[in-house]
């Protein structure tokens, strides 16, 4: 049941033609699973995608696909595989994961607008293929640390949607019991969630050092954005990781904007995959989950034998930097719409899978329903669960508390409560 296709993830001519046919651009992105796909668009996509196909088959269990946008390499003779296999199970899994993240973030955005989520809330919508592609390549021994756009990662690393949304609403069912919030979520092999731009990069190198030290064959993905890419400590981490051949993949998720400053206005060199100097680098289309997976698989193998490299995932965020940023003062609505239409990671993957016969439209509908239900239930839970009792204010400040009393507002009248000791006690 093998089929070979050339991927078409960028379809400028097609989309331009399409725009003439249909003024309602939105139908190509957010209305997933509602059966309203334009037959003209789909037809065009199908024609292009079938260029290398032998025949149509709706019951394929595995397909071989060419990564359409070529990898760019820095100081590497060989790069990731451009021909990748995709099984039906994988297709279902990646689609479900990406769709769950999209739904989670939509729910988070709504909860924020309802003023139920406080403070920070940075959404990952548009970037789903990066996390899902990387997670698909990760093994049990591998680790990840990221900055603060991590709701999706937290879910991928094993926290339920309700654990994520409940953390955002600050209730005790949250994965950090409501004590961390949007930026500080943790799970096994997931070291957060870091609110200090760039600080997670040397921390990730340290996790990589621990992998090498323990000799467990694991590695660490240290993620940062194009904004953090200019922090000095990122280069400090590159340097030591390379000197010591640490198993670390420095992943620059380039969504083109560090807060409201475009990468061109912040970086003298926007080819982030080359900024490790001596470190090899790979550029990958971050809107293509299979390309990200392929690049990560290559990188995992590479860093465990040769030491670190830099992986730039070229991606895009649909929302503003945070909820206080409408995201339109430094870019145009047209730009956002164009990406949503031409490069949306979920839509393009779904259409590819349907075209390949790996997933049926009925299966898509079923997944969408299931995801919607799960996230709706998680939202309801996040809204209804209660916050921790006040005594948790002074719970687990130390893993081994030695303070006779902690100070309250007006006196040293608090006894530290020890509920947990931490994984490294």
């Amino acid at each position, binding site marked *: 049941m093998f089929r070979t296709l050339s991927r078409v993830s960028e379809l400028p001519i097609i989309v331009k033609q399409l725009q003439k046919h249909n003024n309602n651009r939105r139908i190509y992105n957010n209305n997933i699973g509602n059966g309203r796909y334009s037959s003209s668009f789909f037809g065009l996509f199908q024609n292009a995608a079938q260029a290398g196909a032998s025949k149509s088959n709706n019951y394929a269990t595995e397909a071989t696909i060419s990564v359409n946008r070529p990898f760019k390499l820095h100081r590497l003779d060989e790069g990731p595989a451009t021909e990748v296999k995709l099984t039906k199970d994988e297709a279902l899994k990646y689609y479900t994961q990406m769709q769950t993240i999209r739904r989670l973030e939509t729910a988070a955005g709504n909860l924020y607008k309802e003023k139920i989520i406080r403070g920070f809330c940075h959404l990952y919508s548009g970037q789903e293929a990066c996390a899902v592609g990387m997670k698909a390549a990760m093994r049990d021994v591998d680790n990840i640390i990221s900055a603060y756009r991590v709701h999706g990662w937290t879910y991928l690393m094993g926290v339920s949607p309700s654990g994520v949304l409940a953390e955002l609403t600050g209730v005790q069912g949250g994965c950090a019991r409501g004590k961390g919030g949007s930026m500080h979520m943790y799970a096994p092999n997931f070291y957060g969630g870091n609110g200090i731009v760039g*600080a997670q990069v040397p921390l990730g190198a340290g996790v990589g050092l621990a992998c090498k030290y323990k000799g467990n064959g694991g590695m660490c993905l240290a993620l940062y954005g194009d904004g953090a890419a200019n922090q000095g400590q990122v280069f400090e981490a590159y340097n030591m990781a390379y000197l010591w051949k640490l198993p670390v993949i420095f992943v620059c998720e380039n969504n083109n904007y560090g807060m409201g400053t475009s990468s061109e206005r912040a970086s003298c060199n926007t080819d982030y995959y080359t900024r490790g100097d001596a470190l090899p680098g790979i550029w990958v289309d971050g809107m293509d989950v299979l390309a990200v997976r392929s690049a990560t698989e290559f990188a995992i193998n590479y860093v465990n034998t040769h030491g670190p490299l830099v992986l730039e995932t070229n991606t895009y965020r649909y929302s503003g930097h945070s909820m206080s940023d409408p995201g339109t003062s430094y870019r145009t609505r047209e730009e956002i719409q164009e990406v949503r239409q031409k490069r949306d990671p979920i839509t393009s993957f779904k259409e590819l899978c349907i075209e390949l016969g790996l997933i049926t439209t009925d299966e898509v509908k079923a997944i969408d329903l299931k995801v919607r239900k799960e996230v709706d239930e998680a939202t309801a839970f996040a809204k209804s669960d209660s916050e921790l009792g006040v005594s948790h204010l002074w719970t687990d400040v130390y893993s081994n508390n030695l303070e006779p009393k902690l100070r309250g507002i007006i*006196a*040293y009248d608090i006894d530290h409560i020890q509920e947990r000791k931490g994984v*490294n006690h």
Partner: protein
Amino acid sequence: MLRSRLIQAASSAQRAFSTSQKALAAKQMTVRDALNSALDDELARDDRVFILGEEVAQYDGAYKISRGLWKKYGDKRVIDTPITEMGFAGIAVGAAMAGLRPVCEFMTWNFSMQAIDHIINSAAKTFYMSAGAVNVPIVFRGPNGAASGVAAQHSQCFAAWYAHCPGLKVISPYDSEDARGLLKAAIRDPDPVVFLENELVYGTAFPVADNVADKDFVVPIGKAKIMRPGKDITLVAHSKAVETSLLAAAELAKKGIEAEVINLRSIRPLDTATIFASVRKTHHLVTVENGWPQHGVGAEICARIMEDQTFFELDAPVWRCAGVDVPMPYAKTLEAHALPRVQDVVDATLKVLGGKVGKAVAAAK
């Protein structure tokens, strides 16, 4: 850059000011050897323990604290870093999060300013932020406080800075017993510990009891030590200021005033129980530190007393002896005047005791 200059720190052993007659007969140990042997013990005891920092391995340590350890334990356990504080502090914290027990050396604590984000935001807060999921067992250590002839950027006490932050434990040892016992305790502790040494006493030999050399000798974190008992006034100090206080107590003794000298050992937790008990006995208190006065360790002790019943035990205001509120000058005379000297402590004591001095002297006769 003063790093090379710092490396020339005194290597010859000096004789410490002795704290008691009995101690003179005891075994001697320099602070350097105390720290070195503590590291050696803990590297041998726990495979997860490793040292990283500038010059710690091949060079044997800028101040020779890690002398011989690289040869003994190799590249894996004793790691030379480039001059890149923020980066290697971050790497050390990351390694601790992932299950190792790093001892991260700052060549001096002055350079930790480049890395303070990782000490505060990455190390101190993670256990709480993760609701008790991820503790960070790491020791940051190195020489702290005023050194000799190195001017403003290399002469500063960071005790108050780090003690301000919940989630950290902050230790400031004075002598060899403190250095060895507290460093071993710090490495075994599951929380992040800031360990503030003093370059000026690295080469000083202090008398130590026989058990100090034991493999399992540890000094509990959070407990102060009474270095010299007395009934007339309490002098509370940490690090090298303990020596100043002991010398002052000896001077005061000549006037018939018996000062009780408390070596804090830990800045956070602060052992107020020992301070309060002493004040209930002496009814007078002077704090002595080489750091700046504003929001300093002495200021905190004043506040603690004010907020406690112990306040009513005081017969006079608490007074602070602290470093002069200026950046440290280079010139020798100016430098000497920037830090509390023995006479300053004596003067402060006499001021606090006021009219009681005559009574105390009379009582002594």
